[in-house]
């Protein structure tokens, strides 16, 4: 470049061709690593160099335009630098426009947030380019809102598009947003619906954050849309994109203005409120040292040691508890009963067995009468206690209610949670008791709605797999803990089979294979857990067969949460059913499953599904090797 004296009429197109050829051969890093910083410096204040640079880029042949532009976009340290380097390339060159507005944003998703900000900032910096910004936003919104995109595209891509939308929103000015208000509103409504329908909490949160952002920009007066969700790193990062950093844009940032106005308005309210009422400032009693106080000492206090906090007593008998929970108007007593119930049930197993189904029924329908802390957990623990004390009749009741009419989705999912927790307790009874809270933490399924219980189980399955493979290579590892009889074995079938029986029969209020795919997902995960816990039980082979058939019918389900569950089911059954029985009774099904799993590993859009499928294939491999290693 030092060969170029300023202002001469040299032909730049040769250089452009060279640049293009180098880039298209994959050598962007080397050449642009040198070129971009140099150009950045030179174009900083020199208009001629800017023009040279623009011409350089305009002359790049079309077939090489993409890698060149992409390289520049990735390497430019900021939107203003990119603006200096590219000029109005995107307006003048169709290929460049395609790359910037379509390819980078919609077809690729591997770029960092900084790159997105550079690119979109660049579009916003010139009047000619701003029109493109609007079209870009429209297209992003269309993609974001399409239900097939939400269902089938990977979560990482959806995150990328959401980030791009938020950055666009932060860059656009009021009049521009006003001009396309209707389309934005319609797009947002469509998109929010699809996102909230998804079973993955991450996608739901993405939808909520973007919808909130759009609605706040669309309507500056009046209440904006506000969802309730827990902020995590991802949502915080997304929300930070809405605030413009000064280096990015020469246009004064509107969102910041709004915020400073609001802050100013809040100030005058505060001092006004304090004028009339005096806050309590204790005055030091001056009479302390007064001699007069002796007259008070005439009065001799009585014994007040009995004066303690008042506590309502909970009933001591199970039948009394039933009475209080079903009829009593006394809220204090009701509260005390709810708190005491689990303990009572565990201490009186014989009495509980007499009324177990009745108790289970009451607990299933129990609603919060007063505001107790941890009501949901208390109720669930009581239900688990009842179920473990008298497993067979209560599991019969609960599984039948799962498929009955007129229960809410929340209640059905509660039934599944209770079954899992009870199964866990029955199969590892040493966790119950004093070590319940510390020891069982890692196995404890989260009780809050919408949480992803499959994560915990994946971890456990991973550990199990690790333990199995280790044993194979290094021989018998003494990892045994104190053993106790597995109480789950006699009742595993009662928990499992009724759940799996009626899944394809739709009721008027409950359609597992249709709308209620969230419950289907939870059901599948529950079955995976029950299968896993049924290791070494008598019914395990029958369960395995039934489960494999169940998985087979559902394997192409569109919901990725359901698919994750199905793959966990396969893991569970590979781990639980003894290897010989797997290979003798289920050979054909397993072979078919293997080809299906291979397909999933390659083609499934969801990262977790692919990983689970890979895990299953590894398990199968291990199984085969293990059996081959043992001389028959």
């Amino acid at each position, binding site marked *: 470049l030092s060969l170029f004296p300023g202002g001469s009429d040299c032909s730049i197109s040769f250089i452009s061709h060279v640049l293009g050829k180098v880039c298209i051969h994959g050598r962007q890093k080397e050449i642009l690593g040198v070129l971009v910083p140099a150009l950045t410096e030179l174009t900083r204040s020199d208009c001629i160099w800017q023009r040279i640079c623009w011409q350089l880029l305009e002359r790049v042949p079309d077939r090489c335009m993409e890698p060149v532009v992409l390289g520049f976009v990735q390497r430019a340290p900021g939107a203003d630098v990119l603006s200096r380097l590219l000029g109005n390339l995107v307006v003048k060159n169709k290929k460049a426009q395609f790359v910037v507005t379509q390819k980078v944003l919609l077809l690729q998703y591997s770029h960092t947030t900084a790159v997105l900000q550079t690119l979109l900032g660049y579009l916003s910096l010139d009047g000619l380019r701003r029109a493109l910004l609007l079209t870009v936003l429209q297209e992003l919104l269309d993609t974001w809102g399409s239900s097939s995109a939400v269902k089938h595209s990977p979560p990482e891509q959806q995150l990328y598009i959401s980030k791009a939308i938020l950055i666009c929103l932060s860059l656009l000015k009021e009049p521009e947003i006003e001009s396309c208000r209707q389309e934005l509103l319609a797009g947002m409504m469509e998109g929010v619906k699809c996102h909230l329908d998804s079973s993955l909490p991450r996608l739901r949160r993405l939808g909520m954050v973007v919808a909130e952002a759009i609605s706040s920009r669309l309507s500056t007066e009046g209440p904006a849309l506000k969802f309730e969700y827990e902020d995590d790193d991802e949502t915080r990062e997304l929300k930070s994109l809405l605030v413009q950093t000064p280096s990015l844009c020469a246009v004064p940032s509107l969102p910041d203005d709004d915020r400073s106005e609001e802050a100013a308005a809040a100030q005058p309210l505060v001092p006004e409120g304090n004028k009339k*009422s005096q806050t*309590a*400032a*204790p005055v030091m009693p001056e009479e302390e040292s007064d001699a007069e106080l002796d007259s*008070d000492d005439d009065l001799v206090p*009585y*014994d007040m040691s009995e*004066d303690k906090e008042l506590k309502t007593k909970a009933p001591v008998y199970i039948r009394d508890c039933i009475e209080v929970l079903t009829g009593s108007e006394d809220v204090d007593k009701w509260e005390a009963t709810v708190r005491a119930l689990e303990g009572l049930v565990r201490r009186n197993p014989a009495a509980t067995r007499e009324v177990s189904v009745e108790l289970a029924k009451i607990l299933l329908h129990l609603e919060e009468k007063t505001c107790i802390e941890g009501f949901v957990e208390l109720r669930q623990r009581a239900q688990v206690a009842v179920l473990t004390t008298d497993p067979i009749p209560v599991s019969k009741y609960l599984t039948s209610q799962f498929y009955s009419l007129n229960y809410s989705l929340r209640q059905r999912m509660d039934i599944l949670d209770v079954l899992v927790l009870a199964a866990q307790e029955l199969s590892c009874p040493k966790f119950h008791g004093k070590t319940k809270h510390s020891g069982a933490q890692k196995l404890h399924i989260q009780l809050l709605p919408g949480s992803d219980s499959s994560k915990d189980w994946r971890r456990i399955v991973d550990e199990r797999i690790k333990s199995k493979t280790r044993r194979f290579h290094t021989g018998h590892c003494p990892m045994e803990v104190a053993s106790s009889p597995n109480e789950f074995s006699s009742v595993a079938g009662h928990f499992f089979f009724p759940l799996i029986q009626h899944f394809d029969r739709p009721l008027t209020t409950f359609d597992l294979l249709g709308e209620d795919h969230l419950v289907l997902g939870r059901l599948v995960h529950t079955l995976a857990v029950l299968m896993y816990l049924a290791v070494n039980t008598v019914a395990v082979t029958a369960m395995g067969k039934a489960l494999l058939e169940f998985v087979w019918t559902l394997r192409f389900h569109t919901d990725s949460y359901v698919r994750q569950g199905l793959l966990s089911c396969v893991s569970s059954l590979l781990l639980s059913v003894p290897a010989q029985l797997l290979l003798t009774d289920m050979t054909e099904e397993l072979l078919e499953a293997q080809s299906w799993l291979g397909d999933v590993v390659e083609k499934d859009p969801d990262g977790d599904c692919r990983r689970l499928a890979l895990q299953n294939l590894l398990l199968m491999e291990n199984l085969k090797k293990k059996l081959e290693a043992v001389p028959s």
Partner: protein
Amino acid sequence: MALPPPDPQFVLRGTSAAVHTLHFSCAGQEPDTPVLFSGSENGFIHVWNLKTHRVDTALDGHGRKSVYCVETMGGKDRLLSQGRDQRICLWDLAEGRTAVTDSVCTEHVGFCRCSLLKVAQGRWLVATAAKGLEQVQVLELPSKTSVCTLKPEMGAKLGMPMCLKLWQFSCGSQPLLLAGYEDGSVVLWNVTMGKVLSQLVCHQEPVMSLDFDSEKAKGISGSSEKVLCIWSLNEQQNLQVYKTHKLVNAGISGITIRPDKRILATAGWDHRIRIFGWKKLKPLAVLDYHTATVHCVSFSDHRNPRERLLAAGSKDHRISVWSIYTET
């Protein structure tokens, strides 16, 4: 070694409903029998003979709606009662009569007890919550003319008035009103001018009850939380917090200071009556007899200090009468 708390001297049974208010009238000379008036949730006012411990008369004047305030107007023959039928009734009980001579419709649907103050011979002022949400009206009795209506200013957000106390520094000076409100503040009003003199935020929860000692210009208030608050009035007529006292259990329904200003009693939601020394709020006794919330406490006005009694009325339908700290 401290003595265990005393038992009640006697217990009055027979109201068959929760007791909300009590008032003694024992200052009469012999052969006048000392009586205790009690107002119950079933709308009856019972006149208890303190010699026989039985009900002498039962007065039915509030349409079976709960009676939550009874006061005497100069002797036990003139009674004032307030009930949930939104009325204040004036009774003439001389010579065995049981008639309501007059009534005032307050249109107040809450539970705020009215406060009575004798300003001159035959002239009384009564402060009661009024129809408007935050308003207190002051009437003159027996003429029933309105003296003023005390309305907090717009935006003060005090809530309902919960308890009232009319008082004057000395006989003949202008009447003042202390009102405890739902938002936890106590306000001092100048009744003649109808203006606020001072406001103090004492509690986080509604002020359930208050009492005031005009000699020492010190008052005490209790609320639904665990704190008792003692405040004082300085020369500029400003309220300031003097001290707070934390209780074991939350909730106070009533506070009353004994006429000799030595001790005070509180009625608690935890079924207990607590006695404190008034000077420094030194806890003196916890009387645990009742099995449900104690709604009201009242000290008797016996001329002979040794005969002084404390009565407590509770939701468990009983009135316990105690003789405590009667030596001067």
